[in-house]
C-alpha cells in the first residue's frame, strides 16, 4: 500500500542569467518523496543538487528563477508563492533545510539557547491551538530534546555563543531541532561533509534515530553514495542538471544501470582495488545544453544510439529508472526515438 | 668565439623571459579597456602626459607672450579660453602648466613609492623586531607633522627649485606607501604560496621579490594613481602660497592665485583653473579605481 506523497517535483527547470549567457543547472527534474521516506540525491559538484534544494526553498539568488515545472507540497504548488508567503507558512514550518555549514545557520551575536527558543516559538505559532505567550518557557522542552539526543553538558552548550561550540555540536543541535519541529519535509544538504569522520558518524547516527522516531520525510543530498546507502531508501543520481538514474538505493549500489553511476562506483577507492576508473573529460558546460545525452562525450558504453536524441527516463525494471539509450530495446521505443 | 656565443644565448634567454613577462600583462590592459570609467580616467591621465610632452606642438600660443591690449578677455576664437592678467593665452598656460607639473608629480609618486615600499617591505618582513618599530616610528613622525608646515620649512631651507620640490613632496608621501606595503607584507607572509616557495628552497630575496612584492603592489598602484591628483593639489597649494612655481612659469596653482586676485576683472581665470584641477583629480581617481579592479586575477580573459 503506497504511502502518501508529501513532496512532488514535476519537470522542474531552473535558469540562471550569467555574463556568458543563460545556464540551466537544473533541467527537467521530477521526483517524489513519500511520507516517512528518505530520498537521497547523489551527484558530484555542478550536477545541480544544491540548486534543486535552493529552488524548493525559494532561496535562489536574484539572477536565477524557476523557468518551468511545479513543486507540490501536500498537493499545493509552491512555485507561484511569494517570499512573503514562504515566510508566513513554509520556512521553518513546513519545510526546514539543514545546510552544510552549521556556522552560517546560527547568528553569532546571540546565545544558542535564545536562538533555539526562537525556533520553537516561531514553530509553535504556526500550529493551531493554545500558545504559550512566553518564548523563554520553551527552555525546558529544548533541554529535554537535546538530552534525549545524547548531547552532553546541556547547560554549557545552551549558554554558549555559536563560535564557542564545535561544528559537529552545532550540526547535532540544529538537526535535533529541525526534526522536533516536525516539518512536512526536511532537506539536508551535505550536513556532514565539513565534519571530521567520527563526528560525522555521530550526526549520521542521530539522523537515523530521529528518522525512526519521527517518520519525517527527508531529502538527503550528498556526493557520498556510501553514506546515502546507509540513510536513504531510494536515490536519484544527478548529472549536469538531470536525473540520470533513480531507484532503490540497494539496487543502484549493487546493480547500477546508467554508465555514469557505474563509472562513479568504479571510481570509489577501496582496499580491494588496485586501480580506479576515473571518468575522462569534464562536466559539460551548462551554458550549452545539448539535445543529446549530456554524458555521452565521457561515456564508456557509448553506442550508435547516442547520436540520435536525448533519452527519456525509462523504467528499466520495476522501480528502477535510467536515462540511457541502451535500454531502448523494443521496437516501439526504437521507432519513437529513432535508435538503431 | 665562446664569449660571443654565450652572450648571444644570454640575450636570447633574456629576450624570451621579457617576452613572457610582457605577454602576461595583456589581461590587465584588456580589463581596463572593458571598464568605461577606467577608460575615461586613463584618457585624462594620457591627456596630461601628452600635454606635458608635446606642449610646444599642441599649445596654440606662446604661454609667455603677453598681449596687454587683450587682457582679461573671455573665450574667443583667437584665445580659446581667454587671457590672463597680462594677456597671455590661458589655454596655452594650462597646457604648459602640465609640462611643468607632470614631471614633478610622477617624480614624487615614483620616488615616494619606491622608497616607501622598500621601507615597508623591510618593516613587514622583519615585523616585531626593532627595525620594524623604528621604521614605524619614522613613518609616524613624518606623517603627523602637518604637511604644509613641513614643506614650508623645507622650502625655506632648500629653496623651491623643481628638484627640491620633488624631493620634499616625495619625502612627505613616503609614510603612506610604507604603511600600506607593510600591512600587505604582513598578510602575505602567511600565505601558502610563500610556504610553497620556501619548500622549493627559495631564498629570502627571491621570496620577497617574486612573491611578496608583486602581490602587495595593487594597493600601492592604486594609491599611486590617487596620489598623482593629491600631489597636483599640493603643488597647486604651494604655488598659491607663492612657494611652488615662480612666475612667469605657468603653473596651475599660480593661475588659481592670480585668478582669485583678479576675480573682478575676469572670472574666467579662476574658473579654468578650478576646472583643470577638478578634471585632473577625477581622472586620477577613476584611473586608479580602474587599476584596482583590473589588477584582480580572479576574472580573466579566457572566461
Amino acid at each position, binding site marked *: 500500500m503506497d504511502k502518501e506523497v508529501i513532496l512532488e517535483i514535476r519537470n522542474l527547470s531552473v535558469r540562471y542569467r550569467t555574463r556568458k549567457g543563460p545556464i540551466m543547472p537544473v533541467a527537467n527534474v521530477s521526483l517524489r518523496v513519500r511520507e516517512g521516506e528518505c530520498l537521497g540525491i547523489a551527484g558530484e559538484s555542478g550536477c545541480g543538487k544544491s540548486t534543486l534544494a535552493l529552488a524548493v526553498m525559494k532561496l535562489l539568488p536574484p539572477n536565477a528563477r524557476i523557468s518551468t515545472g511545479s513543486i507540490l507540497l501536500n498537493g499545493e504548488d509552491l512555485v507561484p508563492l511569494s517570499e512573503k508567503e514562504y515566510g508566513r507558512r513554509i520556512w521553518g514550518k513546513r519545510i526546514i533545510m539543514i545546510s552544510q555549514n552549521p556556522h552560517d545557520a546560527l547568528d553569532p551575536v546571540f546565545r544558542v539557547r535564545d536562538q533555539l527558543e526562537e525556533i520553537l516559538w516561531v514553530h509553535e505559532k504556526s500550529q493551531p491551538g493554545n500558545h504559550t505567550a512566553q518564548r523563554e518557557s520553551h527552555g525546558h522542552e529544548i533541554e529535554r530534546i537535546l538530552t534525549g539526543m545524547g548531547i552532553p553538558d546541556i547547560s554549557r552548550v545552551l549558554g554558549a555563543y555559536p563560535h564557542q561550540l564545535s561544528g559537529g555540536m552545532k550540526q547535532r543541535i540544529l538537526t535535533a531541532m529541525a526534526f522536533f519541529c516536525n516539518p512536512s519535509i526536511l532537506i539536508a544538504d551535505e550536513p556532514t561533509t565539513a565534519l571530521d569522520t*567520527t563526528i560525522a558518524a555521530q550526526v549520521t547516527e542521530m539522523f537515523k534515530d530521529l528518522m525512526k522516531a519521527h517518520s519525517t520525510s527527508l531529502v538527503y543530498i550528498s556526493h557520498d553514495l556510501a553514506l546515502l546507502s546507509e540513510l536513504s531508501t531510494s536515490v536519484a543520481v544527478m548529472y549536469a542538471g538531470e536525473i540520470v538514474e533513480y531507484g532503490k538505493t540497494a539496487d543502484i549500489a549493487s546493480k547500477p544501470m546508467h554508465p555514469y553511476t557505474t563509472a562513479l562506483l568504479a*571510481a570509489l577507492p577501496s582496499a580491494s582495488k588496485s586501480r580506479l576508473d576515473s571518468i575522462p573529460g569534464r562536466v559539460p558546460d551548462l551554458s550549452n545544453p545539448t539535445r543529446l545525452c549530456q554524458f555521452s562525450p565521457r561515456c564508456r558504453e557509448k553506442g550508435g544510439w547516442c547520436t540520435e536524441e536525448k533519452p527519456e527516463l525509462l523504467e528499466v525494471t520495476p522501480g528502477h529508472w535510467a536515462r540511457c539509450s541502451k535500454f531502448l530495446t523494443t521496437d516501439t521505443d526504437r521507432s519513437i526515438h529513432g535508435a538503431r | 668565439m665562446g664569449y660571443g656565443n654565450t652572450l648571444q644565448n644570454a640575450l*636570447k634567454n633574456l629576450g624570451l623571459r621579457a617576452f613572457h613577462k610582457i605577454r602576461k600583462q595583456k589581461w590587465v590592459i584588456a580589463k581596463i579597456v572593458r571598464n568605461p570609467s577606467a577608460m575615461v580616467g586613463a584618457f585624462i591621465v594620457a591627456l596630461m602626459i601628452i600635454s606635458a610632452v608635446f606642449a610646444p606642438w599642441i599649445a596654440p600660443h606662446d604661454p609667455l607672450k603677453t598681449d596687454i591690449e587683450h587682457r582679461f578677455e573671455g573665450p574667443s576664437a583667437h584665445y580659446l579660453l581667454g587671457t590672463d592678467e597680462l594677456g597671455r593665452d590661458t589655454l596655452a598656460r594650462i597646457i604648459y602648466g602640465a609640462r611643468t607639473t607632470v614631471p614633478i608629480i610622477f617624480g614624487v609618486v615614483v620616488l615616494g613609492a619606491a622608497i616607501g615600499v622598500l621601507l615597508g617591505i623591510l618593516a613587514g618582513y622583519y615585523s616585531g623586531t626593532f627595525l620594524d618599530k623604528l621604521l614605524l616610528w619614522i613613518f609616524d613622525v613624518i606623517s603627523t607633522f602637518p604637511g604644509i608646515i613641513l614643506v614650508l620649512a623645507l622650502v625655506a631651507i632648500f629653496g623651491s627649485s623643481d628638484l627640491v620640490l620633488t624631493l620634499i613632496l616625495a619625502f612627505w608621501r613616503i609614510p603612506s606607501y610604507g604603511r600600506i606595503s607593510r600591512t600587505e607584507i604582513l598578510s602575505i607572509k602567511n600565505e601558502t604560496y610563500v610556504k610553497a616557495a*620556501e*619548500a622549493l628552497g627559495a631564498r629570502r630575496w627571491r621570496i620577497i621579490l*617574486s612573491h611578496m612584492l608583486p*602581490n602587495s603592489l595593487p594597493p600601492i598602484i592604486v594609491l599611486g594613481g590617487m596620489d598623482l591628483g593629491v600631489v597636483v593639489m599640493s603643488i597647486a597649494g604651494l604655488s598659491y602660497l607663492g612657494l611652488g612655481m615662480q612666475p612667469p612659469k605657468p603653473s596651475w596653482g599660480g593661475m588659481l592665485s592670480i585668478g582669485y586676485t583678479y576675480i573682478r576683472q575676469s572670472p574666467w581665470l579662476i574658473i579654468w583653473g578650478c576646472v583643470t584641477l577638478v578634471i585632473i583629480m577625477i581622472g586620477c581617481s577613476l584611473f586608479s579605481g580602474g587599476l584596482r579592479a583590473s589588477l584582480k586575477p580572479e576574472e580573466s580573459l579566457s572566461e
Partner: protein
Amino acid sequence: MALVEVDDLKIFFEGHTGMLSLPKAHREFVHAVDGVGFHIQEGEILSLVGESGCGKSTTGMGILRLVNATAGTVLFRGENVLKMKGRSLRRYRRKAQMIFQSTYASLNPRMTVREIVAEPIRIHALEGDEQRIEEKMLEVLETMGLRKADLEKMPNEFSGGQARRIGIARALVLGPELIVADEPTSGLDVSVAAGILNLMCDLRDKHHLTYLWISHDLHAVSFISDRVAVMYLGKIVEMARTKHLIENLCHPYTKALFSAIPMLDPAERISRIILKGEIPSALHPPSGCRFHTRCSYRMPRCSEAEPPFKEIGADHWVSCYLYE
C-alpha cells in the same frame, strides 16, 4: 636503512600570541606533535590519518622543515634534517617536496603556470637555457595531462583537479625522492580524485617515489597506502600494514575511526562505535593516554601514565594498555 626515520618528533607552538611574552613559568604550548616516531622505506607509501587537530599536517611540515621542530630527529638517508642549514638544507629541499592541501592557496595567483613550474628550476639553477627549461616543463605537464597552452594561464583559470596537478608538476620538476602529500584528494569530486590517485600511483612507479600521504579520507588511504599510522592529539596510537590493519583494528580509537566510515557494501560494515565527548584541546592534553577521556575500555591506569608504543605483531604497533 629507511629513507626517512623520524624519532620522538615534537612540535610545539606558542599558545599565547600577543605583544608581550609571558614569563617562562606561565607559558603555554599547543602540543601539536608530541613524540611521533616512524620509518618510511624507499618506494613505500605511508599514510598518516586522523581527524582535525591530530597533528598529521604539522608532522609533514616538520619533516620538510616548513615549521620549526621543538625536539626529536628526522633522518633522511641517515642525515638529520632538523639540523641542516644553508646549502645542505637546500639540497634536501630538492629531494623532499610537498603537495599542499589548499591547492589554489599554494599557487601564487599572479604567476602564470609557466612561472610557477619554472620557479624550482630557476631556484636551483638546474638549467640556464630558456629553451631547455621550456622543454622540461612541457615534459612534466604532459605527464599531468596538461597542455602547452596552459603555460600562459593563471591558477584561477583551472578546475580543482587541474590546479592540483599543477602543484604536483611543480613538486616533480626537481626530481624529488620523497613527496609529502597533504590531503591530496580532499575537496575533489570522486571521479577527479580517482584520476589523482591513479596519477600518484603511476608517478610512484615511474619515478621511484616515496610518499608520506596525509589524509582523513580512509577509503583513499586504504586504496593507496602500504602502511598506515593513526594519529590522535599529537601522537601515533596505532601503525601497521594497511591490509593487516583493516582486518585487525586494535586501538579503541582506530576501531571507532574505521567504524565511522560509511560503506557502500552492507557486508563490509562493522558495527559503529560512537565516541563520547569532543576532541580535547591540544593546549592541555589529557594526562596519561590522550584518548582515555573518550574511551569505553578505560582503566584506572590509563589516566596515570601514557602507554608505551609497542610492536604487538608483525610490523603492527599500538599504544594501549589493552595490549600490554
